[in-house]
């Protein structure tokens, strides 16, 4: 019955017990809606046929309601609606109240990606790894504009508002992969701001977590002996990690391939023509300006789609990213201006990401 209704209503699979409960309310509500709808529609049609005009100028009686009619008209729907609410509201309260033993994951939305951070553990882009059968509390915020974290299979959605953390939680039934969407409009990449929830066996998750904590990305964020030995090399490497973390790589390639933004390969000190005329030399000043005020000088052939990182990247990190860009050099002595973007800013449909 559940499966039949779910398919008839085009609902996605149910990833948790909560999703199944919400769906039961859904079935109840939609069935009652249909009953009410068919009831009224049948009455209207019956009246239209039964009392159709047979002769011009037929008089009709004046009929006024008795109080009982209006009481029924108000009381019937009110009772029904309150029953719906009595089921739906406690479910919502449950969704807003994570259990105490839940595992925390920090979720940050930014144009146009999801970043997941585990306390004391790794950061991850786009893929949220969680264990099956354990409650997971999500602490959700945004770095720029409002986004909304949406997992249809869990009937769960929470806006990511800059400057605030909101919480919600879920407990996945079984291992699998599920879609994460952004549900609040956030600009050009709104529909490409996709993530994947990876639900793992608890043991595998624990192993993954242990492994991830040892990964270079996490290690680099901590003090390593390496840092003291060669500060500049470390700065560039840090810049590389930061560029991944801030999502620069979503639009800029490092190997010269054309993408949404100019490739970083051989970008340093390149002479670039600008949209609207003029040229600029891509020195440290310009690279920094492009992070803080990206719309000011847009390289010819690209769209003004880059979000500002003003106030989001601290100074030392800007320096690290610039250092990283400076290391991306080939032997070309006088590189030509960057050819335009490879395709429209949003890589619309990516078959590998849909199910």
């Amino acid at each position, binding site marked *: 019955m559940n499966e039949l209704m779910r398919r008839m*209503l*085009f609902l996605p699979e149910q990833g948790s017990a909560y999703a199944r409960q*919400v769906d039961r*309310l*859904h079935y109840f*509500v939609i069935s009652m809606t249909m009953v*009410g709808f068919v009831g*009224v*529609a049948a009455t*209207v049609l019956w*009246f*239209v046929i039964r*009392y159709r005009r047979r002769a*011009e*100028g*037929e008089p009709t009686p*004046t*009929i*006024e*309601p008795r109080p009982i*009619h*209006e009481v029924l*008209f108000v009381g019937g729907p*009110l009772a029904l*609606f309150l029953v719906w609410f009595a*089921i*739906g*509201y406690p479910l*919502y309260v449950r*969704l807003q109240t994570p259990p105490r033993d839940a595992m925390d994951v920090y979720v940050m939305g930014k144009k146009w990606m999801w970043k997941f951070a585990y306390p004391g553990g790794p950061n991850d882009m786009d893929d949220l790894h969680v264990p099956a059968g354990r409650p997971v509390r999500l602490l959700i915020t945004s770095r*720029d504009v*409002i986004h*909304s974290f*949406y997992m249809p299979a869990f*009937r769960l*959605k*929470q*806006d990511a*508002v*800059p400057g605030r953390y909101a919480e919600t939680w879920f407990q996945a039934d079984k291992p699998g992969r599920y*879609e994460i969407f952004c*549900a*609040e*409009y*956030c*600009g*050009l*990449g*709104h*529909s490409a701001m996709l993530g994947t929830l990876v639900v793992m066996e608890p043991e595998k998750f624990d192993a993954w977590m242990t492994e991830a904590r040892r990964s270079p990305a996490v290690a680099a964020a901590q003090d390593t002996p390496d840092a003291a030995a060669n500060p500049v090399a470390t700065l560039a490497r840090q810049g590389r990690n930061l560029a991944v973390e801030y999502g620069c790589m979503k639009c800029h390639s490092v190997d010269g391939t054309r993408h949404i933004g100019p490739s970083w390969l051989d970008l340093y000190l390149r002479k670039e023509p600008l949209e609207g005329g003029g040229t600029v030399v891509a020195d440290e000043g310009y690279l920094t300006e492009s992070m803080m005020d990206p719309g000011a000088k847009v390289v010819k052939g690209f769209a003004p*789609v880059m979000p500002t990182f003003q*106030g989001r990247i601290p100074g030392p990190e800007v320096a690290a990213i610039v250092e990283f860009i400076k290391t991306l050099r080939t032997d070309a002595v006088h590189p030509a201006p960057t050819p335009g973007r490879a395709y*429209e*800013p*949003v890589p*619309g*449909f990516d*078959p590998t990401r*849909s*199910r």
Partner: protein
Amino acid sequence: MSPSPASIPPAPADAGAPLYLERNYLNARRGLWSWLTTLDHKRIGVMYLVLTSAALFLGGIFAMLLRIELLTPGPTIMSALAYNRTFTLHGVVMIFLFMIPAIPGIFGNFFLPLMIGARDVAFPRLNLLSVYLYLTGAAIALYGMIHGGADTGWTFYTPYSTTTVTMVWPILLGAFVLGMGSIVTGLNFIVTVHTLRAPGIGFMRMPLFVWALYATSIIQVLATPVLGITLLLVAVENVFGFGIFDPARGGDPVLFQHMFWFYSHPAVYIMILPAMGAITEVLSAFARKNTFGYRAVAFSSLGIAFVGFFTWGHHLFTSGQSTVDAGIFGVLSMFVGIFTAIKIFNWTATLYRGSIAIRTPFIYVIAFLFFLLFGGMTGIALATVALDVHWQDTYFVVAHFHFIMVGGTVAGFLAALTYWWPKMFGKSYSERWGIVGATLIFLGFNFTFIPQFLLGNEGMPRRYYSYPVRFWPLNVASTAGASVLALGFLVVLATLLLSLKYGKPAGPNPWGSRGYEWKTLSPPPEGNFLTQPTYPRMPHDYDDLNPGRGGH
């Protein structure tokens, strides 16, 4: 085509009346200047008809572009930026240039004085001003569109709207000016209803369309200033850098949502209440029955206007507002459903033992009932909070409000237009083509928006430029439906326009209606009445077997 005017004895003032009044409000004065400076509420209504219909057409073109873009999962005919601008313009044009001003502007202006036996509205000059405010607001918004247009969505959520590189201010300023026009119209109607009712038309004898306009006007006057304030605050933040909504400057983005919806949710009732009023008139006329539960229908309009102010929080269930707030807003939202249910039941009961003629306007009435019932019930489902979490910002919500806005308001608009057309222009349109158009719109609408409910269930967020391939089939279905819907609108447009040239004179009362506005000639003379009508009965009293009733 139309029923013989002789079927119901015309009101005494019309006895021996001409089929077409040669010297009427349309030709009493001539020249463009006479239109631009007219103080005649009927001419102002006609100007609104031309302007808002143009807006409907423009918004419809944007809608078709969106549907074509969504025909395939990836890019189809436009870039992501163009798509974002197009859905913003679709929303802005449809809401601010069509939905809000259309029915009050056209039919309110034209028929409110006729329905209460007045010669004009209380402030004819303010009335003309409202047209110019509309034109100014529309011109400013158009300027913004020509310069690319904003990409914020019609909701202008901060901080996106204060950080986007596209041109937002003309649209904001345009909406601000249009809001002024809305306030002026509302004020005018309230004063008109209070001061200009003819002898014999007490408050409880007013046609129900007037009641609906009265309730609408109250919302317009009370809520629209909040929109103005909100838009000004966004402008102040943009221009002077004050931190009001932008968290980077210490502001609160959710505050914007509260302020925006404090206007924009009641604005939904600004859009639907006049349509409900028009439907009440049309339904009574074609059922030849008094409206069942006159008081209930009248007061439920006021009830919707009142409760509508306390439901805005249901737009913020997933924004992080407190759980208690969500519960309160959920229950209060259901009360709107109760008032709407009262109307639906009373309309249905009005049909009982009537004498029902299935004509073009009545088909829109049936369609309206269908759409409002389904749109309304899904609205209650959304107010159950838990279900809203899944549906919020998905195509389910899109389908829900299009059921109310297109299904409700546009069906009400078309019912009113086809019902009052003979009175406004004195000509009958082709009944056959009228029915064809209404049927196409009914079918096309369902094929457009029922798939969108399912898309929302499936989890497709709104304002998506591209989408995973599993959403493809339902999107194709929706686009196919939209094509039929567009065709229906073109048929209606052609039918009505052709009637102006080729239509037969309609006569003063082609439908045999006993609404008060039919007591004058078609088209009405410049001063509305050649002789002042009397109002011995309730509007829509068809009880000839009991002629004494309803007198006092």
